Every structure is written in C-alpha cells, then in structure tokens.
C-alpha cells in the first residue's frame, strides 16, 4: 500500500472509537476488530489494479474526513423533494445517524423494518447469520472499512410469503468532510415480496464520503425490487458495494442511478445460487462537469435455468467519464441460462469519455448469451425525424437525450420516484418541453 493511502486509511479509521459503543461483549465488536485489521492489511485500489484502471481514487485519498459524530440539523420540510409517497416506511439517516423524527416507522405487514443498530441487538441471530454473506466483510478494502465502521443502517426481514410495502431508506448529507458507512441487510424469505428504495441525497454541494455495503438475500421464489438512487452532491465521493444472492426461482429487479458525486463507484455482485432465478439490472449514469461514475457488475450464473437481463446506459457531457465493466459468468452446469447485456453510451461533448467492458465467460454449452455495447452520438436519422415534425434541432436533441435515459426510468413502478428522476433528467438534458 502506498504511504498516502495508508495515512488516509488511518485518518479515516481514527474516528472509529468515537462511535457510541455497543454493550460490552456485543458480537459486533469482534467483527469490527477483524475488519479493522483486514482493512489495514488490504491494499487500497489504484489505477494499477485491473478493476480500477479508469477510476483513480487519489483525490479521495488526499482528503481527511471527520467522523460523523452527530446528525446535522434538518427540518422535515427540506426532505419534501425526496419523499417517496408510495412508501409507508421510511428510515432517514442524516450524516449517517438515524433520525426517528424524520422517519416513518409503521407496521410493515409482518415484516421487520428497523435500523440495523437496533437489530444488531434485538435480532442478533438473524443478523449474524446473514451479515457478510453476500459481501465478504473483508472481501475488499472498502467492504472491510465499512465493516470496521459498522454502526447503523437498514435491517429488513420479510418472512415467508409476506408482502412488504415499499421501504425508503434515505441518506441525507448536511455536512462537509464527513465520511459515512451505511450498511443495509435485506433478507427476503421464500415467496416474500419487497420493494426497496435506497436513496442518497445532499442539501449542500460540498465534499463528503459515502462507503456503503448493501446485502440482499432472496429465498426461493422471493421477489425483490431495488431502486438505488445516488444523487449525492457533485463533490462527494461515493463507493457502493451491493451483494445479491438469489435462491431457486427468486427474482431481483434493480435500477441503479448515478446522478451525483465527483467520483462514484458501484460494485454489484449478484449470484444466482438456485435454479430458475431471474434478474433484471438497469443502470443509468447522467454525468457532466468532471464527474466520473464507474459501475462494475458481476452476474454469476451458478445454477441452471437462470436468466439475466442487464441494460446500462450512460449520458456523458463536458469532461465527464463513464466506466462500465459488466461481467457475466455462466458456470459449468448452469445449463439453459439465458443472458442478455447491453451497454449503451451517449457522448455529448468532445472531452467526454466512456470505457465499456462487457465480459462473457461461459462454461456451459446449452446457453443463450449475448452482449452488446455501443458508444456514439445521437442518431442523425432520429434528430432529422423530429426536425421534420417542426422541432428545433436543440429541442430534438434534448428530447432524444432525455428519451435515451427515460426508457429505463419508465420501468420503475413507483410514480413518485419516476417523477423525481424525470425532473432531474428534464433539467439536465435541457428537455424542458416534455414533463408529464
């Protein structure tokens, strides 16, 4: 590890003891201590690592973060723009701290929806059985740091057959220079259904850090929908690791949006552990200025009869940079797998850059796999079509740029989330004319 990175890690971890300690002898302390050791042993990624070739975190390593000692002041009204009306349940975290006053905790139809800090004690056995099961606690430097910091987050457990109303987890940043380490643990037992909105926003445009680990375990026939909205401040650093494990016939549908952050990275690792599992992963990055958004996804078809569909789209303006690395592995024995992956990228400026690397690794012969990647500008033919209907060139371009992204957004079944994303898209693409 370079000295710079090492020093940074020390500074990051120095606030560790400031956390309110759990009751002496709590099992989590051991986990944290192991992870801390692991975090020190692991190398922080640099562009010399193949998986980080295009994402240079040295600006992050130069920052000194403060430990999030307390939640900043925030009134309920300032959260109105982020409200997900369809979600009766909301956990709001301000600067990493759970704020009951800004949350909605209601009866969850037989499911458990509560802050992780509480669950660590009240449901220790369940948490213990699953924590680190999808994202190894020491699997990467960032997962280790997250675990070393493990403090609070979301705990969601849907027992067998239970249908959970939509759950909104809202992370709001109010302060500069704070680093938070949210942890989400979602357990969907057999035949349960749930919808999760994982949401990162800020009420300022300063620098701060988010290093989140989310784990989703879906039992046989469970159905999970997961919207991940990263709309951090434009100077934030956001490192996300999502691990998903699907049992037999489980379904997972996700949309991950990257609108904010100076540098954001999402590692999404999905394993189809049981036969007949299905996943649909959408990704959308809308970047401008000097933003960089890097998505590394890994879909592991470890069982037969699974299907996966992935569509990742990036709109890159100014000097921004989008990175997509989509790995699909079909293991021996994962016969009759059906997998389709598309990476589509729109470059709006001469200084914009895209690096796309779809990967197929196939070790079973009775499979249908395809991937595709395109990088380019708007289709001249499409622009002409709209102009021939009387739209100005700029209106035509704005509409097509908007449409490029909206196609994914429209798949979301939560109208308030769709409306919010459309609003951002409309503002960012200059397509002021089409607002539903």
């Amino acid at each position, binding site marked *: 590890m370079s000295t710079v990175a090492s020093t940074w890690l020390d500074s990051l971890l120095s606030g560790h003891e400031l956390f309110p300690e759990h009751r002496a002898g709590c099992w989590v302390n051991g986990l944290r201590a192991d992870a801390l050791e692991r975090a020190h042993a692991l190398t922080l990624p640099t562009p010399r690592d193949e998986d980080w070739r295009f994402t240079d975190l040295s600006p992050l390593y130069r920052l000194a973060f403060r430990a999030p000692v307390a939640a900043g002041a925030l009134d309920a009204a300032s959260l109105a723009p982020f409200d997900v009306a369809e979600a009766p349940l909301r956990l709001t975290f301000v600067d990493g701290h759970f704020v009951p006053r800004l949350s909605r905790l209601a009866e969850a139809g037989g499911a458990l929806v509560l802050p992780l800090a509480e669950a660590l004690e009240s449901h220790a056995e369940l948490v213990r059985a699953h924590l680190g099961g999808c994202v190894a606690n020491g699997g990467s430097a960032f997962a280790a740091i997250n675990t070393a910091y493990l403090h609070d987050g979301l705990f969601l457990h849907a027992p067998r057959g239970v249908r959970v109303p939509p759950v909104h987890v809202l992370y709001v940043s109010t302060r500069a220079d704070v680093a938070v380490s949210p942890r989400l643990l979602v357990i969907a037992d057999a035949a349960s259904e749930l919808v999760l909105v994982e949401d990162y926003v800020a009420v300022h445009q300063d620098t701060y850090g988010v290093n989140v680990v989310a784990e989703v375990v879906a039992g046989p026939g469970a159905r999970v929908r997961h919207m991940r909205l990263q709309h951090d401040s434009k100077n934030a650093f956001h490192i996300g690791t999502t691990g998903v494990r699907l049992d037999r016939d489980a379904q997972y549908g996700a949309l991950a949006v990257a609108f904010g952050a100076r540098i954001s990275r999402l590692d999404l690792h999905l394993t189809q552990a049981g036969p007949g599992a299905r996943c649909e992963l959408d990704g959308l990055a809308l970047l401008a200025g000097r933003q960089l958004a890097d998505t590394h996804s890994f879909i592991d078809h470890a069982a037969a009869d699974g299907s996966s569909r992935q569509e990742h789209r990036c709109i890159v303006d100014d000097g921004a940079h989008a990175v997509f690395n989509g790995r699909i592995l079909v293991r021996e024995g994962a016969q009759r797998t059906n997998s389709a992956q598309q990476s589509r990228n729109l470059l709006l400026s001469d200084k914009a850059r895209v690096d796309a690397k779809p990967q197929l690794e196939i070790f079973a012969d009775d499979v249908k796999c395809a991937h595709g990647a395109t990088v380019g500008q708007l*289709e*001249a*033919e*499409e622009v*002409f*079509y*709209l*102009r*021939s*209907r*009387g*739209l*100005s*060139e700029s*209106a*035509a371009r704005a*509409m*097509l740029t*908007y*449409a*490029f*992204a*909206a*196609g*994914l*957004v*429209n798949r979301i079944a939560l109208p308030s989330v769709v409306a919010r994303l459309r609003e951002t898209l409309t503002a960012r693409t200059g397509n002021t*004319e*089409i607002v*539903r």
Partner: protein
Amino acid sequence: MSQSPGRELLHVDGLTATVAGKTILKGIDLTVRAGEVHAIMGPNGSGKSTLSKVLAGHPAYEVTGGGATFLGANLLDLEPEERARAGFFLSFQYPVEVPGVANGQFLRLVYNTVQGARGREELDPLEFDDFVRDKMKLLEMDPAFLDRSVNEGFSGGEKKRNEILQMALLEPSLAFLDETDSGLDIDALRVVAGGINALRSADNAVVLVTHYQRLLDYVVPDYVHVMEGGRLVKTGGRELALELERRGYDWVAQEARAA
C-alpha cells in the same frame, strides 16, 4: 383536374443532389399545385426516397444544383423544422423509434410547436387529448398508442398510421408520403388511404412515392411520374400507373434512353 389549376405549392427546377459524394438526383423538374395528387413511381434505387428526403432537408444529402421553391419561398434555404412549420410534411418510409418518449406527449409537442410557429392556438393536455383521439378515429387507431413510446414496437402498419396521424395534426399544404403503402396489409392499406383522402382538400396536395400501384387504387393520382436513374423520365395520368403495373419499368427506361 376539371377545376382551374390551384396555386403553385412546390416548384422544383433541375434539382441535383449527392449523398456521400455519389450523385443520386440528376436534374428533377416537378411542379405541384394545390388540389393535386401526384404519384412518383420507379424501381428500387431510382432516387424516389432521396427526392423526398432532399426536399425535407435531410442533412446527409447535399444539393449540388437546381432549386426548389415552396409557397414561393426558397425551400432549400430552410432548416428541416422550418420546412415542417411552413407546411411541408414527409411521411417516412421507416419512421424512427423514440423509446422513452410517450407518443401522446410527442404528438402534442409537435402539434403545439407547429401551431405556435403558425401563430395559432396551442392546446393544453386535456384539450389535445380530445383532439388527437378524434383524429385517431379517422385512422382506426387504438388510443393506447398514445401511451406507448413513439413508434417503438409498432408494427409496420401501425407506424404508417402514426405517420398519417401526424399529417392530420400538422395539416400540411404539401405531403410527401414515402412508400406509405409498404408493409401494409390490405385492411391497413384501406384505412391509411381513407385517412389520406379525408385530409385532402382544394388547398393542399399529396405526392405519393411508391413502388407499386396498389395504393393508387385508393388514392387516385392526377399525375403519375416515373423516376429512373435520378430523373423523372415520363409523366402521364392514372393509366400510366396501370401500364407500369402490367409492363414493369424497363420499357420506360428504354424509351427514355431512346429519346
């Protein structure tokens, strides 16, 4: 044709054009007056679609000679959207799909943009909804098409109906319909042709660009032009289309070469 000739809508004079350095139009002369229906026929590759696109202002084509006026103004000076607003309409052979934009929103935007440019009243979403549903009846279109993305996943016939629906909304003075009959089954052809006929008036004109004459059974042309090698080599009446159907195009080409 029995009435006195209508006002001149389009006058094309010796028009030549290239795409990617290749000359496709080699001198087109064509005059279209209000109240007329023209058919431009010709074999594949004769330049029919190119003529439509050049007149609509497709940026891939370069006009290298000749001229075209539309309602007295220099058509070639106008941007594609200005041509549309001025009343020139092109129904695409392959309408473009715009995933992510609802057809209803698109149609309203198009309608209001052109209405605004013509100094006419724009419609709010509710008014427009009634208005467009009415027009859709003409083309026997299911209102569900308003909620789908523009042309996305539409069948060939549905796309063509959507084109004619746009024509109905934009009320052009001159409509070039490029291969509007291709990909249509007989029922769809009848509906689309019915829509075209319903939109005809003494003030506007239609140019049908087509390979086959079957559309002309429904929309009866006053003039039939044969295009060959980038030129209009023969002009006749309705009967010429029937003769082409019977004899093919070769004899026209030979005649043109002999002349």
